[in-house]
């Protein structure tokens, strides 16, 4: 739906920011432009709403050459989120979010209703809507930035390094929020980031751009990890790309049922690691029953590591198993314990399903 046709951006001093870029961003989903500083990813993004004009080539939006539309009018139909949110400090959150609806010529009532809806969509309250941007945290400001981009009902939203200025925990929340909004609204998001992890987490399609503004590879995250087009992409995707690829496989692992005990309940000496649960059956941690027996004391319960949801990716399942003191990863579904898996089980399932090659001489290969 957004089509770059042989797009080049060359500046007056001869610097080539974008070199003969041809690319088709599919409708719906999140397309990520990723690459090192100066690879032309932001320039490419800004050409979509004519903040930057290409030197040659053209860009089509829904088959229509965007250079034929007045720039300001085009921009009102394309959402835009930038790094530091770029909120108007002199306007309240509500007024900020009303910006595009007002520019579109909607009357005050309709613009206000659209703004309030967008503010609620990104998880902010009516009370926060009355405040000025400086009264909000960085993460909340970025949410306002997203709300402002959505309020005019755009079909395309551009995001330029939207989450790089917020701390990692907030970033995780915002990423999940953006993914949810994209699915709920069915919009097309084009995002620029220098963070390959963010690209792999969020992107349905990823365009890796190299130095000199040329497109190195345009592929899905799984393809990118499995078959990097060249050394540059392989390097950029990272040394631990084999490990990252685990995120894109969801092997069917048979979860083993796990017996649980409550604090104060009697256990037999030498039971090994036993999973402790609360009265609702939610796992609380592991206790090592070796050389003692009797009621389980609360202070002996060790917190387990990460928890995997049933049907999670191989990465999450392995992480749960590897971070668990018992070597058994806890799997839950809708807040209830399903059972546990071991790392061996996960890897065996991966081999069985062909995600991982079976090396000669391994136990699985023996007849």
């Amino acid at each position, binding site marked *: 739906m957004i089509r770059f046709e042989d797009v080049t951006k060359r500046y007056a001093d001869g610097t080539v920011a974008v070199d003969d870029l041809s690319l088709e961003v599919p409708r719906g989903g999140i397309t990520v432009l990723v690459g090192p500083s100066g690879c032309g990813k932001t320039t490419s993004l800004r050409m979509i*709403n004519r*903040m930057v004009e290409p030197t040659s080539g053209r860009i089509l939006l829904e088959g229509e050459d965007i250079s034929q539309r007045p720039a*300001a*009018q*085009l*921009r*009102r139909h394309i959402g*835009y989120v*930038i*790094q*530091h*949110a*770029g*909120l*108007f*400090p*002199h*306007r309240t959150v509500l007024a900020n979010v009303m*910006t*595009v609806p007002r*520019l*579109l010529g909607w009357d005050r009532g309709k613009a206000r209703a659209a703004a309030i809806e967008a503010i609620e969509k990104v998880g902010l309250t009516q009370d926060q809507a009355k*405040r*000025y941007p*400086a*009264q909000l945290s960085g993460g909340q400001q970025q949410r306002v930035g997203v709300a*402002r981009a959505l309020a005019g009902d755009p079909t395309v939203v*551009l995001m330029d390094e939207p989450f790089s200025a917020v701390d990692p925990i907030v970033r995780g929340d915002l990423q999940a929020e953006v993914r949810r909004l994209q699915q709920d609204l069915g919009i097309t998001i084009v995002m620029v980031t220098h963070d390959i992890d963010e690209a792999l987490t969020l992107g349905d399609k990823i365009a890796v751009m190299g130095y000199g503004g040329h497109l190195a590879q345009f592929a899905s995250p799984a393809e990118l990890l499995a078959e990097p087009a060249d050394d540059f992409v392989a390097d950029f995707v990272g040394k631990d790309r084999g490990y990252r690829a685990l995120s894109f496989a969801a092997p069917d692992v048979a979860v083993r049922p796990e017996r649980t005990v409550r604090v104060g309940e009697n256990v037999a000496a030498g039971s090994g690691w036993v999973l402790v649960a609360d009265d609702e059956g939610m796992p609380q941690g592991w206790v090592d029953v070796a050389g003692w027996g009797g009621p389980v004391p609360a202070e002996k319960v060790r917190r387990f590591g990460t928890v995997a949801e049933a049907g999670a990716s191989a990465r999450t399942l392995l992480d749960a198993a590897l971070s668990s003191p018992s070597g058994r990863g806890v799997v839950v579904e809708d807040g209830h314990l399903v059972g546990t898996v071991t790392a061996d089980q996960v890897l065996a399932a991966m081999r069985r399903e062909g995600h991982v090659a079976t090396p000669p001489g391994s136990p699985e290969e023996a007849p």
Partner: protein
Amino acid sequence: MIGGVAWETLGELTLRHLYLAGVPLLLGLLVSLPLGWLAARSRWLQTPVVAGTSLLYTIPSLALFIMLPLILGTRILDDANVLVAMTLYTVALLTRTVADGFGSVPGHVRQAATAMGYGELRRVVSVDLPLAVPVITAGLRVAAVSNVSIVSIAALIGVSQLGMLFTDGFNRNAMGPIVVGVLACVVLAVTLDAAIAGLSKVLTPWLRSGAGA
């Protein structure tokens, strides 16, 4: 009577002073806004515009009061001469501040506004200008005090305002009117300054919201 000056005369002269110093403040602001915006926008125009307008301030006021009737074709006692001269001084002081004010608007805010679909003029009026208010009003306060001081020289060409008390005191060798005139000028300057500071506060509610709540 105070210091040999009738209250009525003092009131009249103060109002005249306020008119001759205050109206040029507004006219000067109206001229400086586009000039300052131009200077802030283009690197090529910045130096000529800012330096050129600043130079106006070096013209001696008495010379300007005498020359303007020849240039404008006005009569020597016409208020217009003083109004135009004071407007020029205001422009001299304000253009640089207005340019600084527009320059103080964060780049990412301006870019976001453009990306939202603002046309240039609409953006300048509804985003850049409000954000430049604190800087511009700071310059306006300086210009107000300067105007109150300079305009008294117009007494030498016979345009009545508080400066008349100085020439009168000088002619009659009486300290009373001079002291009264100085005090009235100080009160007027302080009042104008406070009024602009208050206006600035009203125009920038977001600065008083207490960040980090």
